[in-house]
């Protein structure tokens, strides 16, 4: 019969102390909260109050393939709010505009990997448009000095470096101001142009598609200018904690989102038919422009 191996008393104490130290050490006593950040500039419904249910469902869906405990969801609709959450909460996943991704990439603070892109309302690429009333004389040529309004929060750097060509820059060739109510801006533009401060409106693809579907709006507008094809919103894994296995698993999970009942519900809330692989060609072009510009 084998004799029982007894750990000497001092060693017991060392183990207990080590365990105590481990448990009480900063950052170890409580698990760090893992989460994701959804960014949608200028969308008033992208607020924690209005999007609570959406975030809850998304947390459940995203948490399923990865072993990080329950995920927490944050949402932001202004660049400032997005920056604050990125700084304070260190989300491990980002679902947001390519401009934010390119900026984070440029800062090179954390490793990132683009997983998929998010088409909305059937649009797999982004294209900004400038619209004006059909009856107005406005064109790109005579836009100089005019006021253009867009959503209440936007990424000015991305617009300047990637969206608009160097020859047609906001702040230089025309004034670009935010508006808290784009629908109201359209009303003023169409119905009481004399009261409207803006001459044209800048719409992203989603907003443009939204107004295109309104027979009281779109027939009254004309597109003055439209941008090149640009990348859509991206889903990006952020941080060094990701393993390649996890990345692949999550990517597969995201691409299969439309076939999952919970995922389909989320997609409906996002007005999307399903997530698709990233168009790296468009992203590369946008990256090049973003980095090249001062």
């Amino acid at each position, binding site marked *: 019969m084998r004799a029982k191996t007894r750990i000497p008393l001092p060693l017991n104490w060392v183990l207990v102390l080590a365990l105590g130290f481990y448990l009480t050490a900063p950052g170890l006593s409580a698990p760090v909260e893992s989460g994701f950040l959804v960014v949608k500039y200028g969308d008033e*419904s992208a607020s924690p*109050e*209005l999007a*609570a*249910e959406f975030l809850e469902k998304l947390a459940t869906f995203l948490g399923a393939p990865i072993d990080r405990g329950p995920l927490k969801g944050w949402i932001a609709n202004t660049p400032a709010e997005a920056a604050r959450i990125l700084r304070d909460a260190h989300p491990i996943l980002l679902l947001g505009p390519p401009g934010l991704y390119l900026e984070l990439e440029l800062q090179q603070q954390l490793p990132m990997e683009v997983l998929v892109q998010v088409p909305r*309302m059937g649009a797999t690429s982004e294209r900004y448009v400038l619209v004006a009333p059909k009856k107005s004389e406005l064109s790109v040529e005579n836009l100089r000095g005019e006021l253009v309004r867009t959503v209440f929060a936007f990424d000015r750097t991305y617009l300047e470096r990637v969206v608009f060509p160097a020859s047609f820059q906001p702040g230089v060739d025309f004034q670009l101001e935010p508006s808290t*109510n784009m*629908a*109201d801006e*359209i*009303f*003023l533009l169409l*119905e*009481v142009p004399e009261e409207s401060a803006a001459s044209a409106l800048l719409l992203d693809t989603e907003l443009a598609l*939204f107004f295109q579907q*309104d027979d*009281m709006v779109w027939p009254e507008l004309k597109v003055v200018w439209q941008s090149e094809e640009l990348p859509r919103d991206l889903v990006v894994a952020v941080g060094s904690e990701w393993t390649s296995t996890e990345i692949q698993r999550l990517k597969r999970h995201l691409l299969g989102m439309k076939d999952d009942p919970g995922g389909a519900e989320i997609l*409906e*809330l996002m*007005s999307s038919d399903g997530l698709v692989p990233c168009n790296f060609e468009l992203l590369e072009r946008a990256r090049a422009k973003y980095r090249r510009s001062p």
Partner: protein
Amino acid sequence: MNRLSLLDRAFRWVLRLCLASSLGFPKTVVSIAVILAAWGGYLYFFDLPILTDRDQLLNSELELNRLRQVYREKFGDDRYLVLVVTLAEKDSEGGLPSVPGTDDRDRMKQVARAWVDQLSSRPDLFPKVVDRMDWAELRSSVLLYLPEEDFKATTSFLGEHMPSWRGWLEQPSLQSLAAFADEVLVAAAATGEQERGNLEVLIGGLEEFLRSVNGQLQSELRVEEARLPGSVRSGTVQQESLHSVVERFRRELVFEMSRGRMDAEGALFFAEGRILTVFADVRGDPGRQNRYAEGVEFAQARLDEVMASHGTGLEAGLAGFPALEYEEMRTGLKDISRGTLITLVLVTGLFIWGFRSLIRPLLAVLCLCLSLGMTCLLVWILVGHLNLIAMVFAIIMVAVGIDFAIHVTTHYERYRWEGRSAAEAIESTMFSLGGAIWLGGITTAAAFFSAYFTEFRGLSELGLISGAGLLICIPCMCIVYPALLQLTDREEVSPADRLLKKGAGRYQLSVGVRPWKVTNLAAARALILVAAVLVALSYSCGQYHVDTNLLNLQEEDGEANRWQRLLLTTDDVATFGIAIFQNRAELEEARERLESSELVRRTESLYPLHEQMKRNLLEPVCAAVEQLEPLEESVTDLSASRRQVWNLRQRIRRFGSRSQEAQTHLKGVETELASLYRTLGALSSEHHGAGVNSLDRELHDLSAEMRTELRSAVCPPLLDSGNLPSLLVDRFLGKDGSLALFVYAKKNVWNQDELEEFVDEVRGIVPDIFGEVISFYENGRSLINSFLQSALYALLAIVLLLLLWSRSIRTTLLVISPLTASVGLLLGLMKWGPYDVPWNYANFFALPILIGIGVDSGIHLVRAWNSGIPLAFSSASKAVLLSSLTTTIGFGVLATSDHVGVSSLGYILFWGILFSLICSLLLLPTLLGVFARRTYESED
């Protein structure tokens, strides 16, 4: 037995008296018996009241029954007939009735209203019918009565958005209204899943409102139709006044916010509106066996009529205690009456078949009927009434009384077969058997009398009446039956004649089972050991569970049962505990503790729950409303209104783009807004005529009304009986100012364990709680205790009497051995047989019957064995066989009853008596052969 015991000597003396009267004055004896029985029968049918009120059967000493009586004096009855109306359509999951829409709810209310109108024609039967809570009486305090969660959501909603609603409340106009709607929609969209219903109501209301506004403005436009652009809706617009639209919308919203509890018209909806209820106080007739029969039958007939005319797509039925009691009484009485009659017929038939004779068995049954009649007379003298439980005495007397007759007939026939005259045969029968009859009868009667000492009045009276009935039955069988035989049986028959006439087979049949010959003592001992082990196992693993769920006793397909179960699975509003308090402080303290209990679903009282906390939360909202500027007369600015409508429409479109479902819901609003936008565009300032002015006035009035209502809702006055709905006051405020608190259990109170848990918990907080639900518990426990107590007393009484008679422990044990073994086997069968049959309030009555028959059989067999005459044992065993078989088959019929309780009673009696028979004819002779060996002088 060499020396006669004191009891035997007493029996002999009594028997001489019996013989002297029956043989000396047979006609007089029969005449007296018939007169007494006829008198008793008359009293039973025409004068003997039957207590059917369960409360009168309870132990009046119990504090809760006293409290309940006090409550009824102060507050009225707490047992209502409940009308339940639902949609016929069921949810795919759970099978509950579907949640009705507005139109469905209106139809449900129509059914309820029509039924109430019908009931009002009989105020004598339905003195009070409650079909609505007049929320108008409560309008100023309605928020306080919302469930806490909903109250908090509503208050926070009001508080947060009050600033943005100021425009509409201070300067009502189309544009401020559109801005107000915009705010409300944004806020409502931010709420969670649970408030989806509120949002839907809001959108529905907005759509109707817009349609009405649009209609008004288009009327204005039609004045100068030529100016209309082609896209503007033309033709007649179905126009409804804004006021009625808003009123309907407000009702819908309140209904939705209160999860279906607060219908604007006060209709009593529950379970998200799935169930509409009406409560009717129905008067019972204490003189009738089924006291609620007239009321419930009337209510059901009227309901059938109403459903035939208004009930398409709906279902309705009656629940509540009166309906349950009516249904139980109807099926129970029907089954018991049928069972008694069939038992009597079968017993008589078997009797006739067993003896191959018509006259003697019929005379015996007649004698039994006479003893029943005389028992009724005795009941009238001693007790003055019968009760629901004591009515079972008839079955007991038929079951046990017929045994006496069978024993007497068996012996009489034997003596007659031996060639003795009727008088000689009667004399021989009485001297050989009379003692056993008296002993068996007195022992069984003593067993029944022992129930008299239990605390449950119903059972106590049953014991008294059944014991007395048996004591009447014995002299009937020892005096009246012999007198009848003496009068009718005058034929002189010799054994030889009989053998020649009927053949030897008749003789064989009439002798029955011969005394057991134990030739192999070891085998007999082994048999006894096996039987002992089997019985011990049955006792240790037998059925001791008591199912106290009264619903499980009812007819399974019973209507009241079905509706009561529906209430139970959704929101049981018919079963609750009641506590009375002298002042509000005491009530609130207890209520606070009860509400925090895991076992309490909710409490109800005159006052809203957590009133002070709610008032504190309302204070800032109230202050904001108080600070509103005086209402201004304002004029709709067409351009500004158009802009606001445009923005609202775009908002709606944004919400609609979220999902297909949202788009479907919002399509109507969007269409109305687009139409209104165009109408407003077509109206120019020079058209700003009567129509717009009228709209402005209406909007002004609406805003004023909304201000008043808002102020009244968020600044509720102090509550007192003067400003509370009369329904609440009637229900919760006593005549002396005391306050009632209703406590609803979270778990199923029809389950004894869960009920016990609930009662223990609430009693820890309010020791004096009472009510129907507590009565279930206490009276159920009291009834079970009483049965156990009476069984114990019965056993003691039997043992004492047997000891007194036999002066031998061994004989006593031998007599009770068939009873002991059969009860053990029955317990085992109930648990491990093909059906798991628990004890319940109905089948408990099998116990005294089993005890009576088991002991009686034991006494006859042991006494016959001890007589040393083989033919005596044969006769006794034949009598036991016949009496047990008749009773077994008779009660077996009860097992086919619709009423589950009666059916289980039949099942238990069938098997119990069968086991008793087997043990009497197989086990007892073996035991006698081993432990009381006897050598018969002549076995032939």
